[in-house]
């Protein structure tokens, strides 16, 4: 049938851009698949494609039913010919459009513009096809109905009603059920032998195909990133982004550049962080409790200079139960909370815990033994986490 060849054409046309894209991006294939937008668009494309297949199958089913074969043959050829012409035009138009967009290098949702518009135009195209097919289908089922309604129509025997659902599922009409009734009878339950709904059957094939392609993608050709590779890429990418951001940000403080911040805005910000995160172990006023040491006296377990406090908060002392907060707060925030803690010294809150550690003397240089130890224990822990 001519119609069939037309549909095949249509599918080829629709697939062509996909193949074209696949060839283009062979080297970059894995990055595309790790892009959420790309995956979403692909899923939409595939879903619509299934819908197109189902609809055209349904139409074929109607066309092939004896009655319509005769009546609509000529008319349909003309009509769908026109439809297809429109599709061709749309397709080419969109391709041209997409190609002109290649030059720009700004990205949309992590996809280059070319790919994005390419996929978008495929979706648009598919939507148009679906609408057209659906219209054709509706016209046919409606005509079928009107034939039934008109008593003087072409002397055809009363044609049973076929709903769109029946057509979708390729079901036998309820009135004709006897023809496919099996001789099974279980406690009065009888069984029909309807066709497998085509959309279900082809959907099943499609999922199997997806399964095979998936396994090949990840485990045979190795084009897909398995989880560790994916993770390493994610971390590397984030590291670059953060570095890029920090280069331009005023937020960039570390233990070599941290200063005691005395501005009230900074101390307020530090106080907020302290109340939300530190009071459980160090008490509401920093007086210390059964867990953490008193922060209001001038005795320190790990040094009382702003640099020492900054480092203690940033890297923690995991062996003594102080966790590292560097993944929780920005360097500036850590500087703020460290400054707030330093501002607490000498506040003499009630119920203060007994002093622990060494008396800190602002003027004196930090004990050399202590500082080397800090460097030695925090550095490996840090690198371990990053790996």
């Amino acid at each position: 049938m001519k119609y069939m060849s037309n549909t095949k054409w249509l599918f080829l046309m629709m697939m062509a851009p996909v193949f074209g894209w696949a060839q283009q991006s062979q080297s970059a294939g894995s990055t595309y698949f790790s892009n959420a937008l790309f995956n979403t668009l692909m899923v939409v494309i595939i879903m619509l494609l299934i819908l197109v297949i189902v609809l055209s199958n349904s139409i074929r089913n109607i066309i092939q039913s004896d009655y319509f074969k005769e009546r609509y043959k000529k008319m349909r050829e003309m009509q769908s010919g026109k439809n297809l012409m429109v599709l061709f035009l749309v397709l080419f138009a969109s391709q041209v459009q997409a190609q002109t967009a290649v030059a720009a290098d700004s990205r949309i949702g992590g996809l280059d513009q070319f790919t994005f518009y390419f996929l978008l135009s495929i979706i648009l195209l598919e939507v148009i096809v679906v609408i057209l097919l659906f219209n054709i289908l509706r016209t046919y089922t409606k005509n079928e109905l009107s034939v039934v309604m008109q008593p003087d129509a072409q002397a055809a025997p009363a044609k049973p009603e076929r709903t769109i659902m029946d057509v979708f599922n390729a079901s036998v009409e309820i009135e004709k059920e006897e023809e496919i009734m099996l001789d099974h009878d279980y406690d009065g339950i009888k069984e029909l032998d309807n066709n497998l709904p085509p959309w279900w059957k082809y959907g099943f094939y499609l999922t199997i195909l997806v399964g095979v392609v998936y396994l090949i993608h990840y485990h045979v050709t190795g084009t897909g990133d398995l989880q560790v590779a994916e993770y390493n890429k994610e971390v590397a990418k984030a590291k670059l982004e953060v570095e890029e951001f920090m280069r331009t940000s005023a937020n960039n403080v570390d233990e070599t550049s941290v200063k005691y911040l005395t501005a009230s805005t900074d101390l307020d910000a530090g106080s907020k962080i302290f109340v939300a995160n530190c009071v459980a172990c160090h008490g509401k006023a920093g007086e210390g409790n059964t867990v953490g040491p008193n922060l209001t006296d001038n005795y320190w377990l790990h040094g009382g200079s702003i640099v020492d406090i900054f480092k203690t908060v940033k890297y923690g002392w995991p062996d003594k139960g102080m966790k590292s907060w560097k993944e929780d707060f920005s360097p500036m925030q850590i500087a703020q909370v460290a400054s707030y803690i330093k501002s607490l010294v000498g506040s003499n809150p009630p119920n203060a815990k007994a002093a622990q550690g060494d008396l800190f003397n602002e003027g004196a240089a930090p004990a050399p033994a202590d500082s080397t130890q800090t460097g030695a224990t925090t550095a490996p822990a840090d690198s371990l986490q990053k790996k």
Partner: protein
Amino acid sequence: MELQKFSYDNKIVKQFAYATMLWGLVGMLVGLIAALQLFIPALNFDLPYTSFGRLRPIHTNAVIFAFVGNGIFMGVYYSLQRLLKARMFSDFLSAIHFWGWQLIIVLAALSLALGYTTGKEYAELEWPIDILITLIWVVFGWNMFGTIIRRRERHLYVAIWFYIATLVTVAMLHIVNSIEIPVSLTKSYSWYAGVQDALVQWWYGHNAVAFFLTTPYLGLMYYFIPKAANRPVYSYRLSIIHFWALIFLYIWAGPHHLLYTSVPDWAQSLGVVFSVMLIAPSWGGMINGLLTLRGVWDKVREDIVLKFMVVAVTAYGMATFEGPMLSLKSVNAIAHFTDWIVAHVHVGALGWNGFLTFGILYYLIPKMFNTRLYSNKLANLHFWIGTLGILLYAVPMYWAGFMQSSMWKDFTPEGQLKWQFLDTVTKMIPFYAARAVGGTLYLTGVIIMTYNLIKTVKMGSFTANEETEAMALSGEYHSHAKDHWHRWIERKPIQFMIVSLVVVAIGGVIEFVPAFLVKSNIPTISSVKPYTPLELEGRDIYVREGCYTCHSQMIRPFRSETARYGEYSKAGEFVYDHPFQWGSKRTGPDLAREGGKYPDSWHYNHMLEPNSMSPGSIMPTYSWLLDDDFQASGIGAKIRAMQTLGVPYPEGYDKIAEADMMKQAEQIAASLKKDGIETDAQKEIVAVIAYLQRLGKDIKNADQTLTTK
């Protein structure tokens, strides 16, 4: 051929029906309490027996094995007799089955409340109950096959195919997953460890959903929908294809519960692709059910039984589409460990299992009591209130799950996590409350149904033995020339059973054998050492209290997780974990690298009053850990059991383990004392602290570079 007179046994059906209603009410009530506990922690009552960690397994076991279990048996005992034109094989076996199953339920509820648990989800029951389950299941199978052998119907109807598949597969799953080594009457260790235990457990867990919550209910659907609608089944061909495809494919999909974990990549990929392939076979059942109603949709609007069943089948379709979607890695990365999964499960449980059961009850009770339903109005009210309940349950949980996951993954531009874990918990409170409203509505519906059915029972008169007659089967079968090829196996129940067992065994064998035999699947890490006796004891308490119901121990390879919890988990870290404790839900934070994060005193205060250390926490208090002594004398037996399982404690270590244990306990007591906390070294809290402080330490301390490929 002679016409034989016999009767159907309705009494056993009635018993199972009553049990279904009773346990349904109990199981859902416990679920509601657990839901309330999540935003009103005081409802844990500061008692071990009613704390969330123990109630949650009681809830899941009660609704799965007590409510749905009795529902299965109710429907099977009713339909099997009629589909085979034979009375149940033995009334005695039926009675043993019924009372045995109720005994198991009671023992389960008691033992779980007392903290006797294996710590494997949906398989928490300890070994003596496991054995009892096996025996009762054999009685069920014996009774079922006895009836099949004595049938007066040549061919087995599709419902019975599903019953047979259920019978053999549940037996296989239960036995393989429950292999454990007993330490005492109430304590055992899983035979498998770590990654292997996880694979076996989720092969079981996933297929418990498949073969306890799905296949038997599909069988029931195939009987009760055509009966209630008085319509022929839509497509015999579809039945055949979707049945075999479903049971074959389902078994493979277990690893989709373990995506982005330490399970080998190939196993994860199998889990993904088989889940995707499952869409069509699952939907085959839905289509066949819904299209059977072709031509009687006007009746569906009137008939309460059909109404419930249509919603049930639709919920089934939604859940079985959502499942494969959740198995896609990109979706799973968001949804796993969140309440999204809880919503997904409850669409299946409340919609599919619940509503189908209600439909069957509304159909069966009036029929067996020769009367009409007491009140259609009440039944309609139940229908609407139940549907609304499902929506109000599911929607907030979907929303909340997605929201919490997004918060977990949020980074500031400076590269810090945007939210503390606790921030994400406090944001959940309104959603937990909304969910509880949905649950309350649903439970209210069930109470209305129970009232309605009790009234119906009072109106009618029960026929215990329903008289009927049928032709005996003649010895020889002369097949029709045009018989479908599948008719052959429908005449051969034993062959049917064997073939279905082979079909369901394939997936498991292919996934397990390499995971157990190929060394490279679980690379060893030399710094990972067995637990000390005190840590082992602490771990047992961790399992006993059901900590795994809220805390995972599996850091997935995502930037957001390694930033929050530390290096992602490696397969080699879990080789001494009998059972594994990866968990499936993060109501609280992951604990895989909890060791050393906080001082001992923090944990002590936190167990006594979680809010003191984590303001706003919804964790219940565990004050009894501070009061109760651990059993130091029992440690020798535990060490010996571990040695049997291949954990390399030195020869004769069981003799000195107790001394080692007390030495470590004294150290922890001393460290607590330094922070001003006086405690006896013998208290359970000391063992728990020892365990928590060990978590994840092995590779933290390791000098070696980690294999990150």
